[in-house]
């Protein structure tokens, strides 16, 4: 497939996984990192606790307004509500159209079925029931020990080991799966709401005052160009000065003080040349890539 032939180096490294749509385009999904997963879970936990507090207050208000004979009804509602919240918060959210809990939404994550199948209810149930042993069991175990006041060294250690085993589990597989993901056949991927930033090419630059030779523009490859793009977008004066000095040294240009303008001009010129090269089937991944590259044979 032509699509695969042109897959660049970036797409195949790191936590990117292939998902080919029925239209034949590979989406290169990026898997969520451990920190994102943990952060989303913390947010969900806080949301659940807040919901529980609000719900408890509502139950109390109900009992207070209906009088003491309604204590029983209040207790039933509270028990069922607690049960639903504990077991179905994750399941109901992830069965929705966004396939993400509150915390996952905030961090731009969602649950997908591995390999591009549809995310069905059974997968969502399976991945979330496993939280029972990953989180709730050690938690209740700990709570029990504290309540009994008998947090004996060995039982506490056993509980800690048990929890630790599941916490580190995602580090021992490439796809950052927790046990629930493993059992349900799911991934958690990044689907951020990204805004399209301004195109570096569209900015006014003093390109006229810089003239580059073809040899100077052919020093770097795509990887370096895109790193330069990131540097320009982040716009830290120190980094820009360092990068400008490095490039000037490499291409043998004299320092003139306008570091940022120099970099923008170089980026524009190099990108223009490389994009023209792409149209002729020349793709140079980085500065070490000499396979397809013929000096001076470009546009």
């Amino acid at each position, binding site marked *: 497939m032509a699509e695969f032939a042109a897959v660049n180096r970036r797409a195949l490294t790191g936590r990117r996984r292939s998902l080919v749509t029925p239209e034949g*385009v590979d989406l290169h999904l990026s898997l969520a990192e451990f920190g994102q997963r943990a952060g989303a879970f913390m947010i969900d936990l806080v949301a659940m606790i807040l919901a529980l507090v609000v719900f408890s207050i509502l139950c109390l208000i109900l009992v207070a307004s209906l009088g003491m004979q309604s204590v029983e009804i209040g207790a039933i509602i509270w028990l069922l509500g607690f049960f639903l919240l504990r077991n179905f918060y994750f399941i109901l959210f992830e069965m929705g159209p966004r396939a993400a809990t509150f915390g996952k939404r905030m961090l731009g994550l969602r649950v997908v079925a591995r390999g591009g199948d549809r995310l069905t209810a059974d997968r969502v149930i399976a991945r979330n029931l496993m939280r029972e*042993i990953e989180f709730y069991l050690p938690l209740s175990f700990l709570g029990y020990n504290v309540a009994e006041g008998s947090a004996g060294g060995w039982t506490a250690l056993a509980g800690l080991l048990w929890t630790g085993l599941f916490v580190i589990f995602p580090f021992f597989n490439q796809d950052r799966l927790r046990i629930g993901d493993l059992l349900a056949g799911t991934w958690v991927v990044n689907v951020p*709401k990204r805004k399209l930033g301004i195109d570096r090419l569209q900015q006014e630059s003093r390109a006229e005052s810089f003239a580059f030779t073809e040899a100077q523009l052919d020093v770097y490859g795509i990887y370096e160009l895109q790193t330069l793009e990131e540097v320009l977008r982040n716009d830290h004066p120190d980094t820009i000065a360092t990068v400008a000095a490095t490039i000037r040294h490499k291409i043998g240009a004299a320092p003139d003080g306008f570091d940022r303008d120099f970099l923008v001009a170089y980026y524009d010129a190099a990108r223009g040349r490389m*994009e*023209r090269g792409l149209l002729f089937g020349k793709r140079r991944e980085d500065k070490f890539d000499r396979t397809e590259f013929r000096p001076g044979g470009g546009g």
Partner: protein
Amino acid sequence: MTDAPDLALPPADSRRFRAAREPEWRQLEDILARAESGSLRKLSDEDLLALPILYRGALSSLSVARETSLDLELVNYLEALCARAYFFVYGVRTRAGSRIKDFFAHDWPVAVQGLWKETLASLLLMIVGALAGYVLVQSDPVWFDSFVPTELASGRDFSANAETLRETLYHDEGADGLSVFATMLFTHNSQVAMLCFALGFAFGVPTAMLIVHNGSMLGAFMALFESRGLGFEMGGWLIIHGSTELFAIVLAGAAGFKIGWSVVFPGEMTRIAAAARSGRSAAIVMGGVVVMLLVAGLLEGFGRQLVTGDATRYAIGLAMITLWIGYFYIPRGARHG
């Protein structure tokens, strides 16, 4: 590509490409944002018609951008946009009602049928546990305390006389806390059942221990009531809800064993693929187990308090188990004919 790059132009090809397509991307972004924030009802008919076209347009833009543009920002943006649109366009949007109907009419019973071997094993373990509890407690009542936690026994132990025990069979927990008690039992049992399922991952060993323990408690209680000559009455007290509740716990155990088994013996598939397959079918069973435990909780809280005749209790309990078995194991045709 609509705008074929003109080679005579300076490095502006990808810029022109972007300027030409950007309004469409923005429109798609806008429709997605509205669709994701609320329901489909927020979208107009025009939006719904435009969505697939815009989605395919964005995909084509992504392909073109990957081939011709070195603007990392642009490629990243299009990848994120296309992924969002893909999941929306190809996501499941069956209505909750038809999903639930499918679950009860087909998915659940078929998943339970698929677990018949594990169900037998789980049932066997529970019976073994019950027999062990019964025999041990009958031979020496001291065993009772080690099988049944004091909170659960709540006075029903060997120090109680026959009259008190008889009372508990017909007026247990008093009429006041009746439905609260039923709710508590339901939530507690569901939690134990889910634990049975989840612990199956540890090769099914903890699941087996839980099932045997559950059985042994049952056996210990039976031995206690039998020793006071209340065996038949105890049976009625237990069977009215127990036929449903114990069946549910046996199924939860079976779901756990299924997972444990496929992790240890994945067969032809890779271990991960085998675990994922059995995890999904076991999860369907578990969804239904919660429903069964809800029924059991209702039978226990209300049915048992309102029906105090032994014969009627037996009749209800046996009718329930017949119903469940018939529902699960009567062969069904493939879905949708």
